[in-house]
């Protein structure tokens, strides 16, 4: 069952044109506006229970899309259906069925304890007190926050705060959770813990997850499907397996030879670096076989060899770049 359906969604922001230098006086008389297309005619859908990553560089339009899906921003054009509801027109109704965690925007009252905050959010979502206390205790157990649940939020570390933010967004049992860069600013340990928890929410509780992040590690661990967005357009919509299969087919081979032997570039083999008898090669495994690669030199000449896969981060960067190049063309 599709829980999110987006058709031809666009969002324009009107910006005032800035006049510089001698044209400064034009500010007084002209009110020219520039239209910035933050999201440009995108369409996609999300199945129930799916974990989808929405990634892209700064200003790509990923947060704007999430904000439109949650009813925070009004789209300029296009259609959105989240759990069968129109977020623009039925925001209050939708808010009872979704949860949001914004890594850069805290929703908790910082002077109050985490517990006071949970009681507050429980009242906002009209959860009966008994049921609410039970839910808090369950979530406190899962998120391991019992130790600091009665401490003021302002005294918690960023990782602890994020855990509390997540508990607050889960109190009303949402069907979909929207995460907008939840791991931003966290140390590697806190990041890992949070990723595990998000994964658990998706796998064990069956909550649909829509996730934006700059951190490729988040996506690799948490999500099965990825949408790459750049300049407001979808560059790629694929599952993680396919992404790895199609885009991670390039291997980086570093060889250190005993003698100074010249290696020449071939179709599928690109020399990235060459220094004396050391070579760094990029090998496209769709074109070249390992046998062909090893045929470039004799086994006796080989002192050392290491083979690694292109990091996912680089793959994503190349997809961003591809989008940019297409635009300039």
């Amino acid at each position, binding site marked *: 069952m599709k829980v999110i359906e987006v058709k031809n969604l666009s969002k324009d922001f009107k910006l005032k044109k800035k006049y510089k230098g001698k044209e400064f006086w034009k500010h007084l008389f002209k009110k020219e506006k520039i239209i910035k297309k*933050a999201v440009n005619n995108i369409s996609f859908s999300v199945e129930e229970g799916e974990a989808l990553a929405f990634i892209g560089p700064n200003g790509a339009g990923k947060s704007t899309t999430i904000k439109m899906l949650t009813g*925070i921003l009004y789209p300029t054009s296009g259609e959105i259906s989240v759990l069968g509801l129109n977020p623009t027109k039925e*925001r209050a109704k939708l808010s009872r069925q979704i949860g*949001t965690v914004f890594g850069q925007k805290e929703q908790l009252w910082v002077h109050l304890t985490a517990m006071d905050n949970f009681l507050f959010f429980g*009242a906002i979502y009209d959860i009966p007190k008994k049921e609410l206390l039970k839910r808090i205790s369950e979530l406190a157990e899962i998120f391991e926050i019992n130790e600091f649940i009665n401490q003021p939020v302002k005294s918690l570390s960023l990782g602890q705060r994020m855990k509390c933010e997540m508990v607050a967004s889960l109190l009303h049992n949402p069907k979909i959770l929207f995460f907008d860069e939840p791991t931003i600013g966290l140390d590697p340990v806190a990041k890992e813990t949070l990723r595990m928890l998000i994964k658990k929410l998706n796998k064990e509780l069956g909550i649909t997850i829509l996730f*934006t992040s700059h951190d490729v590690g988040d996506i690799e661990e948490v999500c099965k499907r990825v949408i790459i967005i750049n300049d407001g357009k979808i560059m790629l919509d694929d599952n993680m397996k396919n992404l790895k299969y199609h885009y991670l087919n390039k291997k980086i081979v570093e060889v250190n030879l005993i003698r100074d032997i010249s290696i020449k570039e071939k179709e599928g083999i690109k020399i990235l670096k060459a220094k004396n008898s050391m070579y760094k090669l990029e090998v496209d495994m769709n074109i070249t076989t390992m046998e062909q690669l090893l045929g470039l030199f004799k086994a006796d000449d080989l002192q050392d060899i290491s083979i690694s896969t292109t990091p996912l981060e680089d793959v994503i960067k190349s997809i961003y770049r591809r989008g940019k190049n297409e635009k300039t063309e």
Partner: protein
Amino acid sequence: MKRLNKYFSIYKTSFKQEKDSIVNYFFRAINFFIIIFIFVQLWSYIYGENGTNQIINNYSLQQMIWYLIFSEMIYFSARTSLITKDISNEIKSGNLSYKINKPYNFYLYEICNFMAKSCFALIFFIPVAILIGFIFVGSIPNFTWLQILPCIISILFSVLINWIIYASVGMISFWTQDATPFGWIVTKLFMLLGLFFPLDFFPTWLQPIIFYSPIYSIFSGPATLVADFSWDLFASIIISQISWSVIIIILGLMIYNLGKKKVVSNGG
């Protein structure tokens, strides 16, 4: 009932959070004391050496100082200087967008949030105001305990009306870069036409304009009620306050509903 519970919870939470800034209140009380001290000196000079027997525009010195103390107290408790700036900043920064995706009416949320802060401020400032008044000019003339409740009701209405006006001004930020200059204009008008002087101090042609304006409901009315109480005056003020509350709540809601479509929130 469930709905009311939700808004009561917002009120309770905001009140709890406000308690944490009690130290700030002591500094504000010092500021309040200094302002009143200056006005006491000023009005004592105006009333002259026989100040206690002198009546200017139906006000004795004692009544004048009590008027000032309570009008200033309303100004302090209503957090007047912050409302427009806060709302304007919320809109400009896009913070507003994060608050509107919850199952409550944002406008009512903000009213509960603000009223909690103001009620906390009133609980703090009313005793401070009474103490300062006693120190400078003694007790309120002809004051009886029966007057306390009507005066408090009127003061609560005044801070509510004050908030809605300033919040509505703040919402101009949906359309302009910054709403604070508009807030300054309103503040100056309020100060000149209500905060510093009772209605009787103005020219006859101006008095009905002030009387039918929200300035009377916010400052002149409740402060006069404290300084020179009568049940007739209470009835006229409360009618004016209820009428203004209804009018500006509707107006504020209209501005909010028009403006919320213009919410711009930065992406990541």
